[in-house]
């Protein structure tokens, strides 16, 4: 559908070397990388907003490297401050449709459809500066979708939002993608966002594409230290959230059933920060809902702290201070218990 071939960008501060990506029709593709990795430049190159000196962009089997952005049908949503401030929400959304010289009625229908899809019909007559961050981002999405783009580019669309709106817009993104199946390239530095939304993920770092794969491949089999750094310090599991009645929810993953506290249901991911897990030689009696026995399989010494891998299965990585580690006399092969609260499990 859309391919980047041998793209090379040198901006002094950062370099993109030999970037090769192919995104399939209807795919939700994530580009994951730290801030300053050149992710925005990569997106703008795809959109035709950044002049490419070396490399090619192909869209639907045609080379579009030198095609003007307005002739590509690739729309973009930026992180923040992206609505036209002098136009109402409605005029923002129909900006692209007006340029296409659509008939008035056709335009109204398209506007109505996209506004309903994003649940922003009640905002149409407002000015952008009166909207909340989440609302603005939804309007920006509506505007980008209104022209029925070949490819939708999202440049850190959730990063400027507060945690609550972020969850809302993230859910919206997933729903919209399931409904419209627009080919999407979404750039982020947030690992969990990438895992939650991406059908495939490309990890970008140090100027190169480090790894491309499904979310599971990226966090189960990172192919380099760089990729591992994103995933290693977290416990991430794929599984399913199931209601067990009495207001209790359980997350089923390969072998383990974790008590969780969430309103989400279905096939999702869970993450637990290593510092939220307690290790003890004996089972703990506490208010924490999750307590499991397992064997220590690996210990990574980080100086004042240590990462202890406990296999239930699955593997849980736990963070302990050197002092506790020494007092408990932990060692590989030893049987221990891990304990964490249901609220320490983040479902996404």
């Amino acid at each position, binding site marked *: 559908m859309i391919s980047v071939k041998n793209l090379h960008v040198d901006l002094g501060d950062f370099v993109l070397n030999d970037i090769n990506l192919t995104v399939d029709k209807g795919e939700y593709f994530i580009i994951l990388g730290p801030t300053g990795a050149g992710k925005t430049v990569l997106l*703008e190159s795809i*959109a*035709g*907003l950044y002049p490419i000196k070396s490399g090619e962009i192909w869209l639907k089997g045609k080379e579009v490297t030198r095609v*003007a*952005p*307005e002739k*590509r049908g*690739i*729309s*973009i949503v*930026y992180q923040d*401050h*992206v609505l*036209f*401030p*002098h136009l109402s929400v409605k005029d923002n959304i129909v*900006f*692209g449709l007006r*340029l*296409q010289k659509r008939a008035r009625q056709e335009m109204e229908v398209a506007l109505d459809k996209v506004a309903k899809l994003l649940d922003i019909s009640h905002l149409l007559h407002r000015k952008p500066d009166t909207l909340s961050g989440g609302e603005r981002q939804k309007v920006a999405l509506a*505007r*980008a979708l209104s*022209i029925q*783009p070949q490819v939708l*580019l999202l440049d850190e669309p959730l990063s400027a939002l507060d945690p609550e709106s972020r969850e809302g817009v993230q859910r919206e993104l997933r729903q919209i993608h399931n409904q419209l199946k627009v080919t999407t390239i979404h750039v982020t530095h947030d690992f969990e966002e990438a895992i939650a939304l991406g059908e495939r993920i490309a990890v970008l770092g140090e100027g190169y594409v480090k790894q491309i794969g499904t979310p599971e491949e990226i966090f189960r089999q990172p192919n380099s230290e760089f990729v591992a750094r994103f995933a290693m310090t977290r416990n991430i599991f794929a599984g399913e959230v199931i209601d067990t009645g009495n207001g209790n929810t359980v997350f089923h993953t390969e072998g383990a059933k974790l008590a969780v506290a969430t309103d989400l249901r279905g096939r999702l991911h869970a993450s637990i920060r290593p510092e939220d897990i307690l290790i003890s030689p004996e089972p703990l009696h506490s208010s924490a809902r999750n307590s499991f026995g397992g064997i220590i399989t690996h210990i990574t010494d980080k100086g004042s702290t240590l990462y202890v891998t406990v296999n239930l299965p699955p593997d849980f990585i736990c963070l302990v201070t050197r002092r506790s580690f020494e007092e408990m006399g932990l060692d590989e092969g030893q049987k221990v218990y891990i304990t964490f609260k249901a609220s320490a499990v983040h479902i996404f």
Partner: protein
Amino acid sequence: MDKKWFTTNRMTFTFILLGAIIFLFIMVPLLKMILASDPKILLDTLLDSEVISSILLTLYAALIATTVGFLLGVPLAYLLARTDFPGKTLVEGLIDVPIVVPHTAAGIALLFVFGRNFFAGKAFSLLGIEFVDTTAGIVIAMLFVSIPFLIDSAKEGFKKVDVRLEKVSRTLGASPWQTFFKISLPLAWRSIMAGTIMMWARGISEFGAVIILAYHPMVAPVLVYERFETYGLNYAQPVAVLLILVSIIVFVTLRTLVYRGGKS
């Protein structure tokens, strides 16, 4: 405001004092002249056809200069705000030169290019446009000395427009021209208008460059000077008052319009 206020707010107090001095320095001469004028003489002056035609000529010539400045200056301002090229700082500095050179010297410089014996003057004279002692001469004198105000203000206005808005516009199907007219220009409009008003006001008040190129037809500042030289203070004063009043009225009206427009 007791004694304590002065001791805790010494700096504010000092600054108010200093500010008041300079404010009065601006206001007192203007007010004194306006208030000291005899209403009857002022009315006579208002009916003096020479005075009226010189004020109208001043407004008209400044308007033409501003229009030309707008059409040529706004695109340049956009380029300066959006692009980087070697020597850009130098170009920006040179654009501001008309503000710092003595305006009589600016007039001489213009005469060297637009005078009858020089290339631009000759070229325009083939088209039937003369610059010495003509309205066209007044216009170029005003244009030269006042264009930096418009370019600088418009440039700052364009700089404040987030480049990503233009980029989004392009991805939504707008050509560079459409993007300029639908996004960049409306968003920078207030700064551009502020610069335009400044340019017009500066044109209206220009004396030095105008008098070198065109003593006649007489613009209002030249008329004030001539009446002062020929008849003395009492005859120059009513013309000066009228000119100041017209300038203030025009300036305040335009500013109000622009700022009200910018709020919505």
